[in-house]
Structure formats: C-alpha cells, structure tokens
C-alpha cells in the first residue's frame, strides 16, 4: 500500500517533479564537482611537491654565508659549521614522521679527480650523499632513504653506487669532459687524502650534479676529514599548502590554535618539529613557486565550496517551494488519511519517501553531471581530469537526501500535523 501510494503520487504532476529533481541535480552536480576537484587538489599538490623532489633544506644554524656560484659551494672545507649524521634517525620521530618521505645528507668537497692512470687531474666537486642508506631510528626500526627517495627521477646509466663500497657515479657533463664511463676507475684526492673508486654509472639530473662526482657520504667525510658529519640535508616532506592560518606567527596563537597548527602538516609546523629534534639547525622551504600555486589552488577550492553551499541552499529552497505546493494541493487527501486513523508518522512517511525518491533521481543525475563538470574544471585548472572517486557517489546521494528532506521539512511537518476537521469540512 505504502509503495502503491508513493509510486502513484510520484508519477503525478511530472512537471513539478522534474523541476524538483532538476534543482536537486544542479545542486548535486556542483557539489560533486567541488568534491572531486578539491579532493584532487590535495592529492595532486602532494604528488606535485613530491615530483619536484625535496622541499625542505636543513642547514646548520650558525653557518657562514654560503659562497655559492652556479650552485657550487666554494667555501673551504674547514669554514662553516657541520651537523652530526648520527642525529638523522630522529627525523622519523617527529609528529608528522609519516609525512617525511625521505631525506639525504649532503657534504660537498672540492677534490682533484684523475681518470684511470692519467697523471693530470682536474679540480672538481665531490658530493657525498646516500643513495639508498639504512638509517636506524631511535625506536629501533630501520628506514631506508637517500637521494633514491628525495629525487627518485634522477636517471642513471649503469647503476648507482652502493653505500660503503669504493664506488661513485659521475655527472653526465663531468663524465663527458673526463671521458668517464661505467667501469672507469678514478682517483679522487683532497689534500693528503685520496681514494680510488670505480664509476658505476653516469647520472643526469639537469642540476649541479651533472658536473660533479657523487659518492657515498662516508668517502666525502673521509676526504674532508669530517667523519660522521654533513653540511646540508635535503628533506622531502608531504605538506599541506600554505593558507592564511599557516602564515600566522605561532607565538601569537591561542593554545587551541597552536595545537591545530602543530598538528597540521604545514611546512612551518614540520620545520619547527624538525628543529626540535635536530638541535642547531635551520630549516628552509625551497620550491616557493609550488607553494604559491598551492595557495591559489586552495583559494579556488574555497570559492568552489562557497558556490556549492549556495547551490545546495538554492536546491533546498526549490524543494521546499515545490513540496509546499504539493502539500497544499493534497490537503484533503491528508485530512482523509488522518480521519482514517493515519498517524503523523504515517502521513510524514509518504511525503518523505517521495522526497527521497526525488533525491535519488536528482542525486544520480547530479552525480553524472558533476563528474563531467569536474573533468572540465580539472582540465581547466590542472590540465588533467581528476580521477573518478566512486566513493563520492553514495556521499552525493546521501547529500541529496539530506537536502531534499531538510528543504521540505517545514511543509512535511505542516502536512503531518494538519488538523483533519477543517479540511474535510470545507472545499
């Protein structure tokens, strides 16, 4: 009986039903698009940050001004401050440890490089770092990291050096100048010290590494006479794009705000947490460009939410208006039902079921339109369509149901509480 009445009344007044469903569909389309795009913004930003490589640079706080020309540090080995390698495991103990994707310590040493048995050597830059190094974390677990994690797209012909072996990789430019290839043996000297390593591969990064020799950190430390120390640390961390909240000075925050800030993966809060673990360091964000982009995207997202709320509100109003008309029209039917002993709940259920049915139709339509809209917007904003998230489908349906019910709440209440006597008396 229930179904009979609902399905019957559902097929009546088709124009009004279409109007209501259309209003719901429109609201849901905007909501779907916003959800799709804004979920995608977060993911995509994170991925973009990662693909750009390390986004944080850790240096000693008391360092002398770097003397860098074209990315090459020309400070003498004994100038400036160094940091202890043994502290690095602590990075994986900060609050946002899981957002620390990887890190690689760097120690640059100016060296003389002589290929094979050649007598003549040239002045080159040696970069000591980790490729894939196992770090012991204070809690006893192990974490494998190095440039393989911070700069995974660096291409190497041949293979990377293994940490702890007498091996190195040569930058593509340097290799060409010195005629090195995988398998070449080179002698690397600095002052009195010298090591002979085998070149295992030729690396091209598009950066300063192309004109340097990359070797295990331990070799660089030995040549520099700085065992267990490094000078710079690249960290790749997943961070939340900066917003107005993250720009605030933590010192001026209330305790609640401070907690919120501390527990959000902003660059600023992760930096603070890193400084707390590594004494005497300075943490700087690099990739400022991407940061700025993130801010714009967040702002676009905020605007879309605003539009979504407006659209949902409009949909609720439209639903309210049409269901008010329906209730008014069916006054005598409602009065009759009550006279026959229908409870508030029974009368309300008929109308609620009808609204839910409309919500379903509107929700399905809206989702379909929203997916298309999200594609258009996604391509407009990112140049790539957002990935479809099926989980949004039930979410949008639920949202449609909520909007339809909330929108028709007042007429629904009026219908179910209507007094039967005046209705049945008059006409």
């Amino acid at each position, binding site marked *: *009986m*229930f179904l*009979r*009445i609902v399905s*019957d*009344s559902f097929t*009546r007044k088709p124009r009004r039903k279409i109007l209501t469903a259309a209003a719901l569909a429109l609201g849901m389309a905007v909501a779907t698009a916003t959800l799709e795009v804004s979920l995608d913004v977060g993911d995509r930003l994170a991925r973009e940050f990662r693909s750009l490589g390390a986004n944080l640079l850790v240096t000693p706080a008391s360092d002398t001004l770097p003397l860098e020309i074209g990315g090459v540090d020309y400070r003498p080995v004994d100038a400036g401050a160094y940091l202890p390698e043994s502290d690095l495991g602590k990075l994986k103990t900060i609050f946002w440890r899981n957002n620390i994707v990887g890190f690689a310590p760097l120690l640059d040493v100016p060296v003389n490089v002589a290929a094979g048995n050649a007598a003549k050597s040239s002045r080159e830059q040696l970069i000591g770092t980790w490729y894939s190094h196992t770090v012991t974390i204070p809690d006893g677990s192990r974490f494998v990291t190095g440039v393989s994690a911070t700069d995974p797209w660096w291409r190497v012909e041949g293979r990377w050096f293994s940490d702890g072996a007498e091996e190195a990789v040569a930058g593509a430019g340097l290799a060409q100048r010195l005629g090195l290839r995988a398998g070449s043996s080179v002698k690397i000297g600095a002052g009195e010290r010298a090591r002979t390593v085998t070149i295992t591969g030729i690396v091209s990064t598009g950066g300063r590494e192309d004109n340097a020799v990359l070797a295990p950190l331990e070799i660089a430390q030995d040549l520099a006479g700085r065992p267990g120390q490094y000078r710079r640390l690249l960290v790749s961390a997943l961070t939340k794009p900066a917003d107005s909240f993250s720009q605030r000075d933590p010192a001026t925050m209330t305790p609640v705000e401070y907690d919120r800030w501390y527990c959000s993966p902003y660059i600023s809060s992760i930096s603070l947490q890193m400084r707390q673990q590594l004494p005497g360091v300075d943490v700087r964000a690099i990739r400022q460009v991407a940061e700025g982009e993130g801010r714009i995207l967040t702002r676009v997202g905020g605007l879309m939410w605003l539009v979504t709320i407006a659209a949902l509100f409009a949909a609720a109003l439209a639903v309210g208006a049409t269901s008010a008309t329906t209730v008014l029209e069916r006054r*005598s*039917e409602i*009065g*009759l*039902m*009550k*006279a*026959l*002993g*229908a*409870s*508030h709940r*029974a009368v309300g259920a008929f109308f609620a079921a009808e609204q839910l049915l409309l919500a379903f139709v509107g929700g399905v339509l809206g989702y379909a339109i929203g997916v298309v809209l999200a594609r258009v917007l996604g391509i407009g904003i990112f140049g790539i369509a957002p990935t479809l998230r099926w989980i949004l489908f039930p979410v949008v349906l639920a949202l449609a149901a909520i909007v339809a019910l909330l929108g028709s709440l007042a007429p629904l209440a009026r219908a179910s509480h209507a*007094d*039967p*006597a005046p209705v*049945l*008396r008059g*006409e």
Partner: protein
Amino acid sequence: MASLVQVENLEKRFGEVRALDRVSFAIDAGEWIAIMGPSGSGKTSLINILGGLDQPTGGRVVVDGQDISRLGERDLTRYRSEKIGFVFQQFHLVPYLTAVENVMLAQYFHSITDEKEAAEALKRVGLGDRLDHVPAQLSGGEQQRVAIARALINHPKLILADEPTGNLDEANEAVILELLRELHASGHTILVVTHSPAIGNLADRRVELEHGRLARIHVPSIAKD
C-alpha cells in the same frame, strides 16, 4: 448497561461562535441516531468531535468507556482507526486509488491490508464488479458505497456519516438508505447527519439541534405507535 456513547454538556466554540452549547445525550449500542437541524446548527461540529477529528472546548464525550475529550494526539489517532468508521458528504475517496485500494487504505492505517477482505466488503455494498475502478469511473452513489465499505472494513464501534446522501440523487439516496438499514439490522451503531426526512424517520431516534443547542430528541417509533 452503560451507553456506548455519552455526551455531557458538550461545548464547542469557534471564537465568539458557539457551534455546540451544552449538548447532552446518550447512544446505546446498536442504535441508529439521526442528527437533524438547520444549516449552521452544529451537526458537523458534533460528529467531528465524536469521531475524534476535533476537540471540544467544554464538556465530556465518553465512547466505549473512553473519555475522548482527554485523549492525546496519539491515542486519538488510534481511536479514529479502531473505533470509528467515517462517511462524508463529499465521499473523500483517494482519486488515484481503485475502489478496492481505497478500502485497503483504511486497513493499512489500522493494521495490515487484506485485499480479499476489502473485495468482500465491496461485494457486500454491491460493487463486486467495480473493484478496479478509480473514483472518476464511478457514479456518485457508487463512490459513496465505496466509502461505506471503507468505513466498515475495520469493524468500528461507531459509524459516523455526515450527510451521506447530500450529494446524491433520489435513486442513489434510496440505495444508501437501504445499506444503512442493513447495517442497522446487523447490529451496527450508526450516527447519521441528514436533512432527509426519509432517513430521519427510519432512525431509532432523531436528535434535533438548533443554534448549537439540543432542541429535542424525537423517537419516531413511538410516534408511529
């Protein structure tokens, strides 16, 4: 034996208008009462209160041992579905439901639907061949017979009919009259508001209202004797 319905000092005001003014009378089980009186004398107001569609502003109405002037919304709803069968002047059938579905609607609000029983009830009012017609396909008299079948379906204690023949021609009025007589004969308690002297004469008693007051109670059978 206590009466099925006891009306004591019943009063109903609509603002300044006294639709019912200290009305008292009683109805025994199985009685057929006709309520008569000029337009605006309070007949509909009385029947609405008896049917639990409206609340009195004063006095008491006890039906089947229940003081319905004190019932809350929820109990009143139950009272309507279990104790009362309504028949209206405008039939009030649901236009998009068939005859049998209209009868089943009353079953639905009462408990559960039983199509066979609903069809049976329609056969009893002579509409066995009209089960699947919607109201628009039925004559006025046929619609009113559907309404009567619907009023009877839950075995109510009290059948309330507000001018059931008011919208019908004489031929149809006669059919309804015959139905009411059968119901009465089979022991139903019937309260019918009517302007029709024919119905008034058939009833056990006639309650006459004037300006909301009980003018007189007429017992035709005694007059006939």
